Structures are given as C-alpha cells and as structure tokens.
C-alpha cells in the first residue's frame, strides 16, 4: 500500500473472502484488492465503481448506482400532460431540450395533434443548442479527467453564450421548461435569434480554432487515450452502446438521420463516425459533432418559417400508446408513453443511453490498467441524472 495511492484520493478496502468468492474470480481471490472508485472521486460523479485489481490490472468492475434516484418516471404519473415536462427535463439538466422534445412528440402522437412548422424549427434550434452545451462539457471533462483543467474553463466560456440565448428565450438558463406538447412555449424573438447567432459565431470563430489548435491532435493526449478501451464494430452492437460511443466504433446510427423528427428531415448534415473505437475516437466524435451542430443551427435559423408556434393541446387525451426515439446529446433516448384517457400520462418509461453505456463498461474495462479507468469512464460520455432517473 504505497503512499501514492493514498495521495491520489483512492479509498480502499481489503476484500473479505465472502464477497469475492464468485465463480469468475477463480484462484485470483487471494491477491485481489477492492478499490472504491467513486462517490468522492473528482471524476466519478454521484456514483461508485467497485474495482477489483490484481496489482495494477483491473480484473472486474461493478458499478454501484442509485445516488441520485428521483423517481422521475413515477412522478410523471401524478402530473398533467403539459406540466409533466418539468419532470422529464430533469432527467439530465445539461441537455434538457432533447428529453422534452421526445416526450412532447410522444404525447402529440397519442393525441393526434399536429405541430406548426415554426415550432419544429425552434425545437431543432434548441435541441442543437442543448447538444452543443452538453458536448462542450463532455470535451472539457474528458481532458479534465487527465489532469488538465484549462479546456473545461474554455468550454464553459463558450457554453455561457448559449445559456444567455436560452435565458432570453425562456427566462431560465438551465431548467428552461420551454418545449411542451403542442409546440413551444415562447415566440422566438429577434433578440433570441441574435443571441443564438452570436453564440454560434463565438463557437465557430473563437472556440473551435483555439481549442482545435491545442487539444485536438495533441501528442500527450493521444498517448494517454489512443488504443485504450477499444470496442470493435461487432462488439459495440452486442454490448448495446449508444450515442457518440457507438458512432466511434464505426456504426452510423443517428436517429436524426434514420427516423427524422422535428425539422431534421429538411436540413443537411452528416453523421460523424470513426473506425478506431477507442477513447480518442470517442473524443473526436464529440468534437466533430460540435462543429456539425453549429452548422445545423445556422441552417435552421435561415429556414425559420413564419406563423404560429403553439397549438392547443387537449386536456384529456384518448387512450393509446406511443414509442418515440430522439437523438439526445448522449445517444438515442426512448420514450414509451401510455395514456388511459385521463388528464395525465398513465405510465412513462424512459430508455436512457447513459444506462446502456454504463452496463457495457465492465466489459470494456476488463484487463486495463487502473489509471485508464477514469479515461474510459469519461470517454463513454455518461450523465448520472440520466442513469438513475
């Protein structure tokens, strides 16, 4: 037990023989050490990984979740059709527009309500704004895990401009509650469009060149992340990865392209894929999607039609059910919504991408070095609010 482990912030508990007598551990059990990577680790978030190590090598990883469980799915059953969005958006506060859009589309499908075109475009702009905000934090935290905290600060500066735009639009910076069944809540004013354009300008002209010069193709970063946590194409499908992690393994899966919703069918963009499937590839996918999202926002603002932005949504919705997938910042987010003819949802099941990535993680983390655990964890791009719901 060197001092180095203690100073690095790991708390460790010597495993009792009862707990580790699993079949797959075999004869190793006498040498194994269980480390609790998490809850208080700076990169873990509100979650614990039980890591069994043999020397420096990880033998087994067992995620322990549930620290931020809020029962969002159950709470939705006590809400009306419209005010259920405040629970849905709290699945993850970083990109709240994606979840609200998915829920709204599901509710509209059951009620048979058609949304005006302007609302679709505003939804697209907001969703892409949310994606950029989320990806910025993803980029920053990925490099931050390796000990460099400058990119996080740069990313937060760029994120601030987008939050300003959201504040002008809805009145709040993070919990905006702006997309409801039947359209969007507020009119996209000229000032909002102006703020959004300045934010995108800042991103494209200031952030992307400066960040790209230093932290993309960076030799030190490459040494640390290339060839680590490799997931081949077939295994990615088998494990059920989602979002940027899946696209980094060479599978062009994107709900925006495959099953277009909102105004994505009318806009021109490409799906970013990488073939390598390692941590660096996942990082690059997030980076290139950021650039792509900025282009989508520009297109949507140019094509913003005139007219109404909200239609009436009935108080009582006829019985029925709908399943809707949306491409959220962290992957494909599914909503299974059931109505029994009442004033609110009967049941809502959310299929979260971060949860899928989390349960693929023990497979990816087999036989890696202990120091690579945070890197792989950050590269899978998970959100804890989304895992626990």
């Amino acid at each position, binding site marked *: 037990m060197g001092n180095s482990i203690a100073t690095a912030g790991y708390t460790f508990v010597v495993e009792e023989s009862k707990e580790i007598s699993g079949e797959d551990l075999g004869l190793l059990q006498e040498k194994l050490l269980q480390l609790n990577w998490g809850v208080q680790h700076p990169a873990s978030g509100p979650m614990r990984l039980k890591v069994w190590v043999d020397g420096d090598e990880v033998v087994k990883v067992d995620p322990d979740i549930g620290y931020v469980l809020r029962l969002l799915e159950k709470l939705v059953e006590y*809400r*009306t059709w*419209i*005010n*259920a969005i*405040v*629970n849905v958006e709290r699945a993850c506060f970083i990109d709240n527009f994606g979840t609200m859009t998915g829920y709204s589309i599901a509710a509209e499908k059951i009620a048979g309500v058609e949304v005006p075109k302007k609302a679709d475009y505003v939804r697209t702009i907001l969703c892409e704004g949310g994606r950029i905000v989320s990806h910025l934090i993803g980029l920053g935290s990925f490099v931050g895990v390796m000990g460099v905290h400058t990119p996080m600060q740069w990313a937060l500066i760029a994120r601030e401009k987008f939050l300003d735009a959201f*504040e*002008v*639009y*809805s*009145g*709040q910076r993070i*919990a905006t*509650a702006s997309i409801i069944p039947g359209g969007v*809540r*507020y009119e996209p*004013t000229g*000032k909002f469009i102006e703020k959004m354009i300045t934010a995108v300008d800042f991103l494209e002209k200031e952030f992307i060149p400066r960040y790209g010069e230093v932290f993309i193709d960076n030799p030190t970063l490459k040494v640390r992340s290339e060839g680590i946590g490799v997931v081949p194409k077939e295994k990615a499908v088998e494990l059920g990865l989602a979002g940027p992690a899946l696209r980094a393994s060479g599978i062009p899966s994107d709900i925006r392209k495959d099953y277009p919703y909102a105004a994505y069918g009318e806009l021109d963009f490409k799906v970013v894929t990488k073939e390598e499937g390692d941590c660096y590839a996942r990082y690059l996918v997030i980076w290139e999607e950021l650039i792509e999202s900025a282009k989508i926002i520009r297109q949507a603002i140019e094509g913003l039609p005139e007219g109404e932005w909200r239609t009436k949504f009935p108080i009582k919705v006829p019985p029925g059910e709908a399943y809707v997938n949306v491409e959220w910042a962290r992957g494909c987010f599914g909503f299974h919504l059931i109505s029994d003819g009442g004033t609110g949802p009967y049941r809502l099941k959310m299929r979260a991408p971060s949860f899928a990535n989390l349960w693929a993680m023990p497979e990816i983390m087999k036989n890696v070095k202990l120091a690579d655990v945070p890197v792989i964890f950050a590269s899978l791009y998970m959100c804890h609010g989304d895992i626990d719901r």
Partner: protein
Amino acid sequence: MEAKEALKIPIEATKKVVRVTKALFAPKATEIWWDKGIRRELHYRGKHIINAELCIGCSMCARACPVNCIDMVPTGVKKPRAVPKVRANECIFCGLCEDACPTKPEKAIKLTDHYSMILEDVTWDKLTEYIFEPENLEEALEKAKKMEELLEKKKQEALKKKQQAQQAKAKAEAGKEKPSAEKKPQQEGKLQKETKGEE
C-alpha cells in the same frame, strides 16, 4: 544605442505609474447590485405578482402547478371566490401557472423580472412563511363587496318593480271583472309585501 536603453527604463516606469494611478481612480469592477434595479430579459421568470382585481378564482393556476405550491385562499365574496397564494419556498419558477391563467388581455398571475429574494436569518420557519400573496387584495375585496351590494340593490329594485306591476295588473283586472271581489287580490298583495319585507 546606449542612450536609447538608458531612456527605456524611465519610460516604462512612467507607464507603470500611469497605469496604477488610472486603476486607483477607475470605477470598481464589482458592485452591489440588489438596490440598482437591474432588469432582466423579456421572459425572465422571477417573483410572482398576483392581481386580485383581475383574478376570477378559477384555480387553473393551482391545477397547472407541477409541485402543488399554489393554494387557493377563500375570500368570502362571490367573485373572486378564492385567490392564489404561492409558497415561494417550494416554487420551481417554471411559469406554467402564468400560461394556464385564462384572464385576458392581462394575466392575473404573472412572473416578473424581480429576482432578488433575500431573507435574513434564514430558518426553516421563515422559509415556509415566505409567501407571495396578492398585493391589492383588500381593495379588490372592497370593490367586490360594493359590486355585490350594488347588484343586490338592483335585484331588489327589479323585484319591487315587478311586484308593483303585478299589483297594478291584479287591481286593474279585479276592477274590470268583479268590482265586488276587490278584497282578495289586495290581501294577496299585502301578503307578498310582507314576505318581501322579511327577505
């Protein structure tokens, strides 16, 4: 060359002195903001303002609230029957109550751009007592009472007129058909008058 280098030092020194003096007399970078009346953006969702004169007491806002922080307080008059009261401690400032309010063109419950909600000595009791109430409730209630009185007066006047008309009719009919049987309708009229007095 030497002369130039010799000049460099005093020039830089004076530059630094100027910069320091400038910084001394420049305005502060930070300031106290809460008495300045800084306005937020158009849709900012801050403190509630409840207009009791416009409120019709339909309790749509209480139903729309996702955290059930709006209570309807009965007023004792007919319109509005009850007015909303927002428990600020539990409110999440989503603004759905404003959307649900049916009064036109101005909403009775609105979220303003006032965002300074400072409580001193914050204790749980103080937080639970921190409530947004209608500002002009007493005036509105007085108005409503006056309106009710006026309405009642009008009603009574209308009733009186009706009865007088009936009496006149009855008299006329009685006089035309049977002059001998005048007493009956008169008695009925008296009875009606008595009952009206009781009302």
